[in-house]
């Protein structure tokens, strides 16, 4: 008698064959395919979640390989976008499920579309600002999401279930200003903690998808170096502007060209408003003759004495070696948004 690939999971009583069917019928969006996101995607693909949307704006780099489990040196050498590289490797792990790799920046224009047709959003991000945006979008659209974060050797994870408990704003208060919190780029991060947090997030995701009664309603806080795990009760904040007053400040803050600094890089990303008018081929053609142009399947690199940027087919650009967002906007306007 042969057994199926999910046999060990099906004989695990809290899942069982019925739970396995639910997993296979489920659709999950993982936002951020870095250290957390690759581990989560690995877990959920092997578990047989039927559809995985993999969302990330970045390209694989050598410094990612210390902790981002799906990537290889070849991915870094070839500068493959993380979402595409993850999809390629996951297809070799489980070819029976559907993947959608989206190489995009998550911003107020596209977040609601990204989460509109999934059962669950799982956090694989590396920054607080986008997490707060996801929090608003998920609360507004009544989509469940699993928050997880890690820095140094510590991490946290919490299910955010609209109408059933606290949200990210209840937990952490207002979005901290840039520079008032540590990131993996400022104090580092070790791979064991990202794997632990990702494993908790994956287990919570599986529990939510199979409809388990064991879903966590607490914050799980842990540290891999100091060897502790805390389970913390968090109250709903009755004055919370997001889940209490339904104010979606970040979601409604739409700029013509949305600019974000890229942590750990001397670079800014400029994302134009998606009005459907961007013509990638025409913009790249116009760059010819103004500097060095290199194009591959995923992006175009442009360099001259004044500008150095990567341009993506969705219209966004990563402007390198600029002191601030204003200078990035100037270069964007001169070479891309003419």
């Amino acid at each position, binding site marked *: 008698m042969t057994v199926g690939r999910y046999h060990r999971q099906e004989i695990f009583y809290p899942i069982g064959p019925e739970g396995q069917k639910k997993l296979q019928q489920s659709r999950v969006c993982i936002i951020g395919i870095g250290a957390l996101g690759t581990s989560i995607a690995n877990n959920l693909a092997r578990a047989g979640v039927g559809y995985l949307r993999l969302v990330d704006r970045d390209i694989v780099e050598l410094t990612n390989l210390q902790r981002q489990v799906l990537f290889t040196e070849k991915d870094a050498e070839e500068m493959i976008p993380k979402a595409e590289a993850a999809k390629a490797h996951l297809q070799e792990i489980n070819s029976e499920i559907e993947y959608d790799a989206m190489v995009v920046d998550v911003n107020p224009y596209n977040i609601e579309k990204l989460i509109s047709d999934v059962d669950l959003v799982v956090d694989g991000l590396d920054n607080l600002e986008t997490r707060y945006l996801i929090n608003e979008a998920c609360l507004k659209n009544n989509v469940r999401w699993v928050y997880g*974060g*890690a*820095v140094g050797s510590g991490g946290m994870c919490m299910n955010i279930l609209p109408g059933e408990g606290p949200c990210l704003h209840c937990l952490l208060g207002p979005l901290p200003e840039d*520079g008032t919190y*540590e990131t993996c780029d400022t104090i580092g991060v070790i791979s064991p903690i990202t794997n632990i947090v990702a494993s908790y997030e994956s287990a919570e995701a599986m529990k939510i998808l199979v409809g388990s009664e064991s879903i966590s309603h607490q*914050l799980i806080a842990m540290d891999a170096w*100091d060897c502790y795990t805390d389970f913390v009760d968090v109250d709903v904040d009755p004055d919370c502007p997001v889940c209490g007053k339904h104010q979606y400040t970040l979601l409604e803050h739409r700029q013509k060209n949305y600019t974000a600094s890229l942590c750990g890089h001397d670079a800014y990303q400029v994302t134009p408003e998606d009005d459907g008018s961007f013509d990638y081929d025409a913009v790249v053609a116009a760059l010819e003759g103004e500097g060095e142009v290199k194009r591959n399947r995923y992006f175009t690199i442009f360099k001259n004495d004044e500008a150095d940027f990567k341009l993506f087919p969705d219209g966004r650009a990563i402007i390198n070696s600029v002191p601030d967002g204003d200078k990035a906007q100037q270069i964007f306007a001169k070479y891309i948004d003419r």
Partner: protein
Amino acid sequence: MIKLKILFNGPVRQLNGWKNVANIELPDGATGYDLCDYFDIIPGKTRLYGFLIRDGKKIKEEEELHDGETIKVNGKTSGG
């Protein structure tokens, strides 16, 4: 005066000279804000600082602390 045991786990230990534990005394009626002041923490501004935990529950800084309590200082984890 009230005596408190303060626990700093993980990267947030930086706020206590990389030590996990501090035993401190604060005036009667002290709140979480007084605890933060003791360690030069400004909620919302100090890097790493997230929130306080008492008896397995997140508390607000304005809440009063009591003699003999153990308070955990938790970070906010932004990376991944």
